[in-house]
């Protein structure tokens, strides 16, 4: 344990103060050099940097333990915006537009890891939206906001780490599926299909999509 005296001394040390931002990569080049030189001159500071990284890891875990907002959130926002009466009418479906936007951000622009992060955010939020039945009036339904009565059998699905949000969006669109819950249990999602879906055949179909789907199981099995 670092003594209080050393802690107080650290209070006046710019490099020590900057350690959290050094760990998150949010320093200027000059500040990075200051901390790099400090770490080189003070090997014992490596332990403190390790503590910072541990705190960061715990903080991220703590935040990610908070569930994503309810799926009805986007519908509500769009209803509120529609009530403002100044929105331009759009001719294309949201699904296409969000897909296009996220595609524009994917690997070339953001790197594979960042794209995966976007996919996680979007899917966690459960808001891969679709315009309802091609209605162009602005009526809106989120992936998880549809009527439960319209939903049929449910599968538990895990996506490949390398799957982009476009891959996932396309798969959900092709199979008329909706994410109804997730991620749970280490990154799995509950996916609902239309009522008349042969779930076993659908699961077999999903498992053939190895580039996107890592795991597909009958829910409750």
């Amino acid at each position, binding site marked *: 344990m670092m003594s209080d005296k050393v802690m107080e001394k650290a209070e006046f040390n710019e490099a020590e103060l900057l350690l959290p931002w050094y760990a998150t990569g949010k320093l200027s080049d000059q500040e990075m050099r200051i901390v790099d030189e400090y770490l080189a001159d003070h090997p014992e500071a490596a332990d403190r940097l*390790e503590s910072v990284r541990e705190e960061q890891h715990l903080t991220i875990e703590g*935040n990610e333990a908070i569930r994503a907002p309810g799926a009805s*959130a986007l519908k509500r926002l769009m209803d*509120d*915006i529609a009530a403002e009466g100044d929105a331009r009418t759009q001719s294309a479906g*949201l699904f296409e537009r969000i897909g296009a936007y*996220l595609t524009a951000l994917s690997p070339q622009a953001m790197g594979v890891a960042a794209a995966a992060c976007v996919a996680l*955010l*979007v899917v966690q939020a459960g808001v891969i939206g679709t315009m309802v039945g091609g209605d162009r009036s602005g009526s809106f339904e989120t992936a998880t906001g549809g009527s439960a009565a319209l939903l049929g059998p449910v599968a538990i699905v895990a996506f490949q780490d390398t799957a982009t949000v476009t891959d996932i969006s396309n798969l959900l669109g092709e199979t008329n599926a909706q994410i109804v819950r997730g991620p749970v249990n280490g990154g799995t999602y509950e996916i609902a299909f239309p009522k008349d879906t042969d779930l076993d055949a659908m699961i077999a179909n999903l498992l053939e999509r190895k580039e996107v789907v890592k795991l597909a199981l009958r829910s409750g099995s």
Partner: protein
Amino acid sequence: MSDQGDRELIARIAKKDATAVQALFTSHQTRIFRFVMRLVRNEAVAEELCNEVFLEVWRKAGTYKGQSAVSTWLLSIARNKAISQLRKRSESELDEEQAAAVPDDQDTPDVEYAKQNKAELMRRCIDQLSPAHKEIIDLVYYQEKAVNEVAEILDIPPATVKTRMFYARKQLTESFRAAGIERGWP
């Protein structure tokens, strides 16, 4: 997240393109919701405030000057709304310095539990930091904001950001110690 892409969305929102706000919402709602949730500790209130954030973006996108990242602007709006909500809730002005000095008094960490679940206990220690300390920890570690960005969101000088983060970490070390968790500084 691409800030350039976000800026393009804001420009479209300023022209009242509803699909742009949908895309912005999809990209940022989870982080904004979690940030607000950690402040107000109530899911329904957090969802309401998150909705208000994006409604405000819809209304005021034209006033966005582009001097900070869009995500920073969103967090600033979110924080202001959360603080207003907390003020309403307590019916008294939130004294940040006082809040910083008073750790959250929810569950007391259990030492025996810590031995079995150190990481879980450490997360609980973070949760029990004062609101001001937890807020800065979240902004730096989870939202990954730079010093100047945190300064803008909290409306405090950059030097204060560094010292507040230092004292948040120091408080965290003391909480760990009280919970029987020994480690290096902090």
